[in-house]
């Protein structure tokens, strides 16, 4: 039986980032992928590297992770398509403009550059937005990446440092033993579940699937310069029950436009739905009427791994499992691309018992276990 210091199950962007981080320590690393590496949520996602301030813990993790992306941005291969495009949060009316002011203060206190745009400044930055919008908040240091290529880069780095990849499904993972679908048995001191939305190895994982649709257009260079997100996005992304759509558009390096996004619970069918696509396009046209004339090349769906408090599960599986060899890096909802490098650091810090750059307790899986929840109630 082959022995490792750590076995990572799942080669999405999160598992790949964790693999590299572990390999950098000189550990013997094994990665197990049952499908295509980076072929699940990571292939479906938008690749917006963005600071979000839903909660203090989310702000801390996204800001930390974004700083890691930025620090490495000049070292990525071209395929990663990293661009520091910046985000503009678009305010439709005066009420949303008031919110822009509040957010700017939050960002400022956290040391995140963010500047107010008047209606005229917004129109100048993005001439294809309709007239009559109230303004916006420009967050210049946010970025855009091509997620599958970023994940492939992390995995290639891990392999270069000696990691071994097994292309088979893990059928069981417990007490330092992993059994693969091709009969291979592996052993390691630590097993990391970086399984995205798949909970069969640990049914106690408190993760729900949240479906999303995306649309990509043909190439229209210079049509768009920043990633634009409607401020109402926060309202709609927060709703835990209803289906929602929000205007969210990203310029790709090829000149293509990636248009998001929908959020749906309780729908585990991967099919693209005409009704959701129509709602997304209608919403987008309310902000950018000129989209009407562009042609769409492809649409697809993906599943976010949602948790009850919208924060990921990073750390030992304690509370969800008695097995002290199990570690989790899952539940990244709509921010797993952004948060992958930060999560990898926090997880490895936890394994080494080393202090982290940010307080890691908010992301520990144990917070979502019954006794912990009751204690907080």
């Amino acid at each position: 039986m082959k022995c490792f210091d750590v076995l990572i199950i799942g080669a999405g962007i999160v598992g790949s980032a964790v693999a590299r981080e572990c390999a950098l320590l000189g550990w013997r690393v094994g990665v197990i992928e049952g499908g295509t590496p980076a072929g699940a949520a990571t292939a479906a996602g938008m690749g917006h590297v963005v600071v979000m301030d839903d909660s203090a813990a989310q702000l801390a993790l996204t800001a930390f992770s974004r700083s890691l992306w930025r620090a490495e941005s000049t070292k990525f291969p071209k395929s990663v398509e990293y661009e520091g495009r910046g985000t503009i949060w678009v305010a439709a009316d005066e009420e949303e403009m008031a919110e822009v002011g509040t957010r700017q203060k939050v960002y400022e206190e956290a040391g995140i550059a963010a500047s107010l745009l008047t209606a005229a400044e917004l129109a100048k930055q993005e001439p294809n937005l309709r007239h009559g919008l109230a303004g916006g908040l420009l967050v210049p240091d946010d970025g855009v990446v091509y997620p599958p290529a970023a994940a492939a880069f992390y995995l290639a780095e891990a392999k270069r440092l000696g990691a071994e990849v097994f292309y088979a499904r893990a059928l069981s993972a417990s007490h330092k033993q992993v059994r693969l679908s091709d009969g291979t048995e592996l052993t390691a001191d630590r097993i990391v579940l970086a399984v995205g939305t798949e909970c069969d190895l640990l049914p106690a994982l408190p993760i729900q699937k949240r479906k999303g649709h995306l649309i990509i257009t043909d190439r229209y260079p210079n049509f768009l310069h920043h990633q634009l997100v409607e401020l109402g996005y926060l309202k709609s992304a927060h709703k835990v029950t209803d289906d929602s759509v929000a205007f969210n558009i990203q310029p790709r390096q090829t000149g293509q436009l990636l248009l998001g996004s929908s959020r749906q619970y309780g729908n585990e069918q991967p099919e693209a739905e005409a009704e959701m696509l129509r709602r997304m396009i209608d919403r987008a046209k309310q902000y950018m009427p000129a989209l009407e004339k562009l042609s769409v090349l492809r649409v697809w769906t993906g599943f976010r791994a949602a948790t009850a408090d919208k924060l990921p599960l990073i750390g030992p599986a304690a509370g969800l499992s008695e097995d002290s060899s199990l570690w989790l890096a899952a539940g990244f909802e709509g921010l797993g691309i952004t948060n992958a490098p930060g999560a990898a650091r926090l997880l490895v810090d936890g394994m080494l018992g080393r202090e982290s750059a940010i307080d890691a307790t908010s992301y520990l899986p144990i917070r979502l276990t019954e006794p912990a929840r009751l204690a907080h109630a």
Partner: protein
Amino acid sequence: MPKLLSILINNVTCQVAPGTTVAAAMLLAQQPSRISVDGDPRVALCGMGICFECRAVVNGTSHRRTCQMLCEDNMTVETNS
């Protein structure tokens, strides 16, 4: 012989017979329909609206499938980059 149509392909005036597709006119003029992401010039391939290789800018609108369009007098056509 019916009157020839006059169209502008990449700023050069070309005369074509009525009934000529825009894709055919671009081939006659030896102009690529589009430039791929990697910078390669492309021309019409399938001629029947499936492959999208013949996309070009027609009267200012980009990504028109030129194999599915007939030339009209005074049309402007440009390589889509």
